[in-house]
């Protein structure tokens, strides 16, 4: 198992290198000049120096290698410096954003908490809702609950977040006026009132993202439970005189969770993609919104870094899903 995990991680390196190259070359084609906003009175030689300071003006392959060096060596060193107060990365050039004129990572670190709060919370909420629905509708297949649940999850699967999000804004913010439609990220939770405010503004984005998660995972949970409920070992367990609760919730559930866990792991990166749209609707200034503004402002280092970080997440969670599958299912042998 360990060798398999190590092998997968080693194999991920060329994949990530290739992906970063694809993103880099795609962005190489981009029109637009980061110096376009600089006043015309600035002399050309100063402009040339500004260009160099931003890491431009060199051939493509050198810039690619430099970006890789900055991303994989300088930024982790900065992180270690920040963690332990050392000074390894002193004087090293970092990946600079063209629109903020500051290191990309600093901006990302500022934006990360908002995204993580909303996205991670909604994912957890979605899973917590999805699992009981899936279990119960499989246990009572073709009952009213199952029919309704299947229909609702199908609707949740089909309604895109940019409609469900706008719809809940119309209902709860515009018509009823209960919840704020804009996520206020400057809010600091210090007492009961601000905590309540934070809760109120998180309800809608979390609800919208959780609807998507719930729809997908409860469908998988139901199908997986149905596969297992007709197996012979279930009849054996019942024949032994085990209680219905322990038959379903221990024997069947543990076996049914195996594929569901991998689906949950695989869904983590895609939820970041979905967050791009949800953040746009609720005006959350998280990573997704950062990516959109960076694309609109032609801030290529920012686009490159954020996109690549999402790619890293995808590759990482693919490995996690495969490894988890091997850990939980003794029938799977990777070695």
């Amino acid at each position, binding site marked *: 198992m360990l060798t398999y995990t190590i092998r997968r991680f080693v194999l991920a390196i060329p994949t990530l290198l290739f992906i970063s190259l694809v993103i880099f070359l795609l962005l190489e084609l981009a029109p637009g000049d980061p110096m376009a906003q600089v006043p015309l009175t600035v002399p050309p030689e100063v402009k040339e120096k500004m260009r160099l300071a931003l890491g431009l003006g060199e051939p493509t392959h050198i810039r690619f290698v430099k970006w890789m060096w900055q991303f994989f060596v300088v930024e982790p060193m900065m992180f270690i410096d920040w963690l332990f107060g050392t000074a390894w990365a002193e004087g090293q050039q970092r990946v600079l954003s063209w629109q903020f004129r500051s290191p990309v990572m600093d901006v990302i670190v500022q934006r990360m908490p908002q995204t993580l709060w909303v996205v991670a919370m909604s994912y957890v909420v979605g899973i917590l809702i999805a699992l009981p629905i899936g279990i119960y509708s499989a246990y009572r297949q073709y009952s009213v609950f199952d029919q309704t649940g299947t229909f609702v999850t199908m609707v949740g699967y089909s309604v895109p977040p*940019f409609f469900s999000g*706008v719809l809940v804004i*119309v209902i709860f913010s515009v*018509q009823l006026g209960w919840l704020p439609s804009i996520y206020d990220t400057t809010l600091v939770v210090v007492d009961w009132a601000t905590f309540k405010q934070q809760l109120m503004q998180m309800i809608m984005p979390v609800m919208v993202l959780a609807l998507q998660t719930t729809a997908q995972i409860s469908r998988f949970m139901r199908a997986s439970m149905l596969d297992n409920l007709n197996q012979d070992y279930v009849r054996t367990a019942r024949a032994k005189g085990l209680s219905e609760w322990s038959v379903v919730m221990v024997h069947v559930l543990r076996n049914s969770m195996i594929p569901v866990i991998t689906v949950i792991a695989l869904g983590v990166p895609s939820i970041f993609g979905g967050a*791009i749209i949800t953040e746009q609707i609720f005006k959350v200034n998280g990573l997704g919104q950062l990516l959109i503004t960076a694309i609109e402002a032609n801030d290529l280092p920012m686009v490159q870094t954020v*996109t690549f970080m999402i790619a890293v997440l995808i590759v990482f969670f*693919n490995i996690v899903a495969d490894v988890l599958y091997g850990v939980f299912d003794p029938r799977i042998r990777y070695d």
Partner: protein
Amino acid sequence: MTETPKPIAALADTGPTAPPRSQWRDVWDQFRSHRGALIGSIVLIAIIAAVFLGPLVWPYDATFIDIRARNQGPSWAHPFGTDQLGRDTLARMMAGGQTSIAVGLTAMLLALVLGSLVGVLAGFFRRLDGPLMRLTDLFLSLPLLPLLLVMVLLFRESLNGVFGPETGIFILIVVAIGVTSWMPTARIVRGDVLALKEREFILAARSIGTTNFGLITRHILPNVMSPIMVSATLGIANAIITESALSFLGLGFPPDFPTWGRLLNDAVQYLQDYPERVFWPGLGISLTVLSINYMGDGLRDALDPRIRGR
């Protein structure tokens, strides 16, 4: 004296009594028994008919501006109301639906052709299997939505110059969605081809000298049609949602060229004053995708011989 022996019962059988049934008849019977799939197909056909035939009977044009009738609510003249420039929302919904569905269909076809090609080649030729599947894995690890946004941003101007603003963006979005959504099809098709390749009828066909091309087109492809068809239906739904998401983020079709996502984006800007305006485009997208998903569900059951006939 011995009697003449009676012929064995089986030899006395008088041919099959029931009329022969074709495979597609069975598929249709199973499909019909799936209530959701049936309702889904009816709704989908109704939407497509309304969107493509509606403009023939509806008097208003999607781009006709009647500034004095702007921001109206529903009335007999304008059942869905009018927008901020006095354009009829029903006409715009129909025009938008045409684009959205056309994008969905074309992008799905492109993804399907690419996916089937890669899947069949990888499954059939052992030497191509490794490289093609690594390529598929690579594409699956790409962050698709950010890349789509970047692609649209980068190539919009140049394609607009060559093909004009509307055709240019149409080609761009179709190609972008197509080349980023062929991977699931390729994987499913490859798996099926790998299993089919070991079957006796392939061996028989090969032994009478069928060429590889003949094997693929005559024997392999017809047998992998059902997974391809299921992923086709889901592909349309996926493509419609992706196109709407791009348009919603303002990186899709230009403002004067309505699609459902674009209409939703326009409506969001007037959310405070006219919240009811977001309803129709959103409903259009959701209903189409929902009915397509139900159709895909029914089709999957109908095309699976293990489920069929139960």
